[in-house]
Structures are given as C-alpha cells and as structure tokens.
C-alpha cells in the first residue's frame, strides 16, 4: 500500500489540471464568500459577534466550489489515467487492483481535505474582511458547520472516484455536476411533496441533498431567515444517507475496476 500511495501521490501532484482546478476553487470560494457576506451585511442587521460568526460561517460553507472540485478531482483519478492510458501502467506497477483503488481513494480524500481547508480559509478570510465594515467584533465560526463542509467535500470526492471508475471522464464530471445542479433539484421538485414518517421530505434523501445536510443541519436563525433553509435531515441521518450513496458508488467503481480490461 505504501508504494501504491507513493505512486498515486506523484501522479496526483504532477497533474497540471489539479493545480489549476484547486486554484480556481480557492479563488472562487473567497469571491463567493465576499459577495455573500456583503449581501448579508446589506440586508440583515448583524448586531453581535455571534451574528458576524454566523454570517461568515454561512458565507464560507455555502460555496459549492470545494465539494464540486473535489468531486471532479475524484472523477479525474480514473478519468485522466484512462484517457492517457496510464491506468494500464498503474496496474502493471501495482497489480493488486483493490490496493491501487484504495490508494486512489486515500490520496483523493487527502487532497480533498487539503483543498477544503484552503477553500474554507480563503472564504472565511474574505467573509471576515467583508463583514469588518459592519464595525461589529467577530467571534469564531461554527466548527460543526465547518466540519460538516469538510465531510461533504470528502463525500463528493469519493463519490466522484466511484463514478470516475465506472464512467468515462467527461460523462463522470457531467453526471456529478449536472446531477447536483439540475437533475436532483428537478427530482426534488416532484418528490418534495412526498413525506416519509420520522424522516421528513423524500427529497431530503436524495444524494446531494443528504450531503448538503452535513452543512445545514446545524441551522442558525440567520440561515433560516436569509437562505430559507429548513427541513433537512437530522445530522446523524444525513451522514448515514450520504455515506450509503458514497459507499455504493465506491463499491460499483471497485467492482468495475477489478473486472476492467486495459
């Protein structure tokens, strides 16, 4: 496993698009947080340090860039290698495919965690800088929401890895991005009326909604009033549902990879 991890780390860190996407995600997260903080400051009375902390947390954790880019990086873990035929080389160096798959998952997760931390850092810095104009002292951001954002990002990365092992790169990226931004909201619109006793809306059980519940479960008054967020799964249930989707995607990816002719 150590050698497989070393292979995967050199492969990952020497792929140009990884750095480009990472830089875009960090810059985009900062810009998103800046704009959202400014919008909240302009529309809402942020009178206490706790309000400032809430606003900064919301601004930093509602940007979809870190999870989306982590998902794309997950898809690329297989997609890039398939496209350039280096996956064959990888299996020659590490012939135990489950070991190679495990190494890809670990490196992708580690990279997603680093990316998420950098995006959060940049977004919080931008949000606090934007909110400094309100003249109110700031408190620390909500650690639970930040942890949830990290979990959501890791989930997207591993979901992407599983999808990338099953589908070609472009199809995998489109599945992930259009699935979250277009397909799932459409399904949610139809499923929104369906209620499951003890759970809530059936729409909350959809994969990306379940992932989002990791961030929004600890809803503050500000998030309810500004973003009209409500009705998400309870944190534990959200983690469980999202984990099932990730586990299914990962298992499907491993099954496909183990049988794949290269």
């Amino acid at each position, binding site marked *: 496993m150590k050698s497989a991890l*070393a*292979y995967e780390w050199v*492969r990952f860190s*020497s*792929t140009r698009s990884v750095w480009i996407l990472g830089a875009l995600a960090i810059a985009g997260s900062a810009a998103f947080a800046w704009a959202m903080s400014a919008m909240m400051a302009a529309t809402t009375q942020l009178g206490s340090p706790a309000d400032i902390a809430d606003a900064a947390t919301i601004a930093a954790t509602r940007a979809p860039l870190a999870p989306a880019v982590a998902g794309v990086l997950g898809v690329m873990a297989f997609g890039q290698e398939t496209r*350039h035929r*280096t996956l064959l080389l990888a299996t*020659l160096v590490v*012939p135990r495919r489950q070991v190679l798959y495990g190494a890809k998952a670990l490196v992708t997760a580690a990279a997603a965690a680093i990316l998420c931390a950098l995006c959060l850092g940049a977004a919080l810095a931008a949000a606090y800088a934007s909110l400094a104009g309100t003249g109110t002292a700031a408190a620390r951001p909500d650690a639970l929401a930040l942890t949830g954002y990290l979990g959501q990002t890791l989930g997207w990365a591993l979901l992407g890895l599983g999808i990338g092992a099953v589908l070609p790169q472009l199809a995998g990226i489109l599945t992930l991005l259009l699935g979250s931004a277009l397909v799932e909201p459409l399904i949610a619109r139809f499923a929104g009326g369906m209620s499951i006793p003890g759970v809530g809306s059936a729409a909350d059980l959809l994969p990306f909604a379940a992932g989002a519940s990791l961030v929004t479960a600890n809803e503050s008054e500000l998030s309810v009033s500004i973003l009209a967020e409500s009705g998400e799964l309870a944190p534990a249930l959200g983690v469980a549902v999202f984990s099932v989707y990730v586990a299914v995607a990962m298992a499907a990816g491993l099954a496909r990879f183990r049988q794949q*002719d290269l």
Partner: protein
Amino acid sequence: MIVTEGLGKTIDGRKIVDDVSFELHPGEVVGLVGPNGAGKSTTMKLMVNAVRGQGRTLFDGVAYADMISPWQQVGVLLDPNMFYPGRSARKHLLMLARGSGLPDSSVERTLALTGLSGRRSNTPASYSLGMRQRLGLSSALLGDPSVLVLDEPANGLDVEGVTWLRQLLRTFAEDGRTVLLSSHLLAELEQVADRVLFMAGGRLVADTRLSDLAGSSDRTYSVVRCDRPEALATALRLEGATVEDQGPQQLSVRGMPLKRIGEIASAETCTLYELSAHTMSLEEHFVDLVGPGHRSATTALEEIL
C-alpha cells in the same frame, strides 16, 4: 522460467487468443511474431493480468497479479503512448519508481541507459515516436528486472536506435535474463531472437528456434527462364522437383540443385535464358507461409517446421 498455460480471450464470441501455451527460459530472447490482429498484444496483456481471460502465466512460479513489486522482476512495455502529456519524463519515471518501491536513482540510471538524460525535463508529448519508445523502455528497465515483455519495441526507432535495442536485448539475455518481444516484422527479430513463436488467428501455430527456420530447405529456390517452360516443368516434376509457374517463360523450382536443373533442361533441348539460385529472407518466407491467398498459417507452418 516463465510458463504460460492455456491463455485465452474471447470478445463478443470471437476468440482473440485461443489456448496459447509456451515456456520461456533464462538467457533466451524469444520473438512473438504474427500479422496484425494475430493476438500478440492481447497475449502479452493476458500474461501480466492487464486483461481478464482464461489460463495463467507464472513467472518463476508466481502469477503477475500476486507479485508485491512486479516491476522489480518483470519489465513491461505494451504501448509507448502511456503517459500524461503535461508530466516530464523524469516525473513520469519517478512516479513508476516510487510505485515500485525503487530508489529515485533508478530514474537517472535508466534515463542515461536509454539516452534520454538530456531531455528528461521535457514532456513526452514533445518527443518523437522513437523517443517515446525509449521512454517506454526506460520504464520497463527501471527495476532492473529479470524478464522483459516488450510489445513492438522497435516501432519508430531509427537505424541507430534499432541497433542499440538489439545490443541491449542481447546483453540482457547474456546476463541469464529472459526477453519476450513481439513484432509483425520477422526481419526485426532475425538478428536478435533465439526462438520465434508464430501466432495467427489467435493461435500459437509454431514454436521454433530461429536457426531451424533459417536452415529450412523451403527458403531456397531456383529461377529458370527458358523458351519451353511447360515441357521443362513436366520433366522437372517427374524428377521430384516442386515447380511453380511465375509468369511468361519463367519457373520457380524447389527441391533440386541448379546443376540437375541444367542437365534436365539440356536433355529437353530447352534454350535457357536464366538459371539462378535464390534464398528467401525470413520475412519473405513468413509472408509466403501466412500471407493472403495462401494455405492456412497453421497448416503451412506445421508442414514446414
């Protein structure tokens, strides 16, 4: 020793590789030769578990998929275009070295061995096909393995490169190591291989030492041009020669020395315009055996070898 048993691969009901078995011994350079689509590449991929199929290959008793660090035992080149275009050659090899648990110094060693040291910071996308082959060979040689499995390694190499490759492979085998290399050009193997495995239609149709093939009597023939070829052909056939009509007034004769052909022509009062001896190159011999319009490769090779 490498033992392959019953290798097979079927795609959409068509047998790409069909029950291929052979053994490779230390110190041998073995050529895997056959026309395009004969199943050479798939056979090599089956050996190293890159495609799933029937049969098994054991390298000193261990399957490739069960090796912990296979790159240190078996060097493989299946395609010179397996690289990420934005990654330098050095990084590419470093990735493979780290993945194989090899020291970083192995990268510089193989770059020097394959003559790529001066271009190590360039990306393979800027390389010629010959340089990509050298990079592929660098990858295969990284772990200083005891076995090399190379699919068409001479493709794209210039004359100097081909000479270098031959010397490299011969030196490799003289160290008691084993080389399996494929080619659809038998001439490429003529100067480097000890043994040749012929594949056609997914089957291994012959396994012979190159020296036996080179000494095959079917490679030599005589060309006769005369004024009455029909009469001469009949007389030669009666004496046991194999005669083929090669066009106006020209015959190809096998299985009879020039002197005897001349004597029979004289007895038949034929006027000779030409009587000459020829030896087919191994390439021509191979095309003669498996080329289109000929008998099935299996039958022909079994008869000859």
